[in-house]
């Protein structure tokens, strides 16, 4: 059913949840690759045991670098038509990915960005909402694309779109970088509503206000 679709999961120290995340994804998707970005809690082994393909960075490079490695990995599979970036911490829903891939299959768009602000399912805290609004505003200013949620880990690409993306921002600013490149390559895009599940676990390591400062400086000094 989805043997032409790869899930690309950047993975860094998510040992507590990664096995469940991979197991759940594999119930729908056949092909899941975890790019282990130098985890030191055995996340890579757990992902592999759960049935994912694992590509291991010899040292920690950052989420952007892990995504680019994943992209190059899945591009080597000639059967790959669609690739979806998926967070390792369990905050994304497999059903949302299915909807995004179906949207790509219509052939009307090349890229589908997930957005948690298109429906009422996601309930971020007020502080988080404010941070995301600022990040989205900044991203819309610098990238030239109008999106409602700039830092959502769920993005689906068709093969042609994936070939046009070359992430050079190793750390967090890759989110805006991807959007810029999609704009520059004049790819057709759409947004799709996704439910981001905030658990105590994801809250404990989620994007804080400090992280948004880092993203801004990385964007300014690229």
């Amino acid at each position, binding site marked *: 059913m989805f*043997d032409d679709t*790869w899930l690309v999961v950047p993975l860094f120290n998510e040992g507590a949840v990664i096995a469940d995340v991979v197991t759940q994804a594999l119930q729908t998707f*056949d*092909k899941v*690759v975890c*790019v282990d970005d130098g985890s030191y809690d055995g996340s890579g082994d757990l992902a592999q045991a759960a049935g994912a*393909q*694992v*590509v*291991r*960075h*010899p*040292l920690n*490079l950052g989420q952007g*670098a892990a995504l*680019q*490695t994943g992209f*190059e*990995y*899945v*591009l*080597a*599979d*000639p*059967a*790959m038509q669609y690739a979806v970036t998926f967070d390792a911490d369990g905050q994304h829903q497999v059903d949302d990915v299915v909807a995004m891939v179906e949207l790509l299959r219509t052939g009307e768009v090349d890229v589908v960005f997930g957005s948690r602000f298109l429906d009422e399912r996601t309930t971020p805290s007020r502080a988080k909402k404010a941070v995301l609004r600022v990040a989205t505003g900044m991203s819309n200013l610098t990238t030239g694309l109008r999106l409602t949620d700039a830092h959502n880990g769920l993005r689906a690409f068709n093969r042609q779109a994936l070939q046009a993306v070359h992430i*050079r921002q*190793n750390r967090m600013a890759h989110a805006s970088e991807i959007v810029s490149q999609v704009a520059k390559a004049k790819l057709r895009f759409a947004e799709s509503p996704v439910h981001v599940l905030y658990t105590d676990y994801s809250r404990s390591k989620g994007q804080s206000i400090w992280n948004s400062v880092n993203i801004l400086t990385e964007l300014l*000094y690229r």
Partner: protein
Amino acid sequence: MWIKIIIIAGIAAVTVVLLRSRGSKMLALRRLAMVVFGMVFAASVLFQDVWTVVANAVGVGRGADLLLYMFVLVMLFFVAATHLHFRGVEAQVTLLARRLALAEATPAGEAARTGDQSTEDPQTS
């Protein structure tokens, strides 16, 4: 005040030079600048009044203040140069690590094929 113009020009020069610092010409210029800088500094230790004279000439009260301004400027140059250098190194390390990671992984096409076999192998079903 001359000093304001000099410092702002210095900052601008640092930015421009760093943005296009490529190749052996830049390296040579940097080395020459280091030599000149060292000689001027050594000379200024021998003739301490020079700082005050120059400071007054450019509109700064004391030689010590001028020295501080120069120090900050040089520091800024150093920070920026180091930052650029590290960014280059990081980009290289990333490519290297990625190559290594991909070389060691089961190829994506192959992984898919073995996956098919385990589910569709007629001998096991």
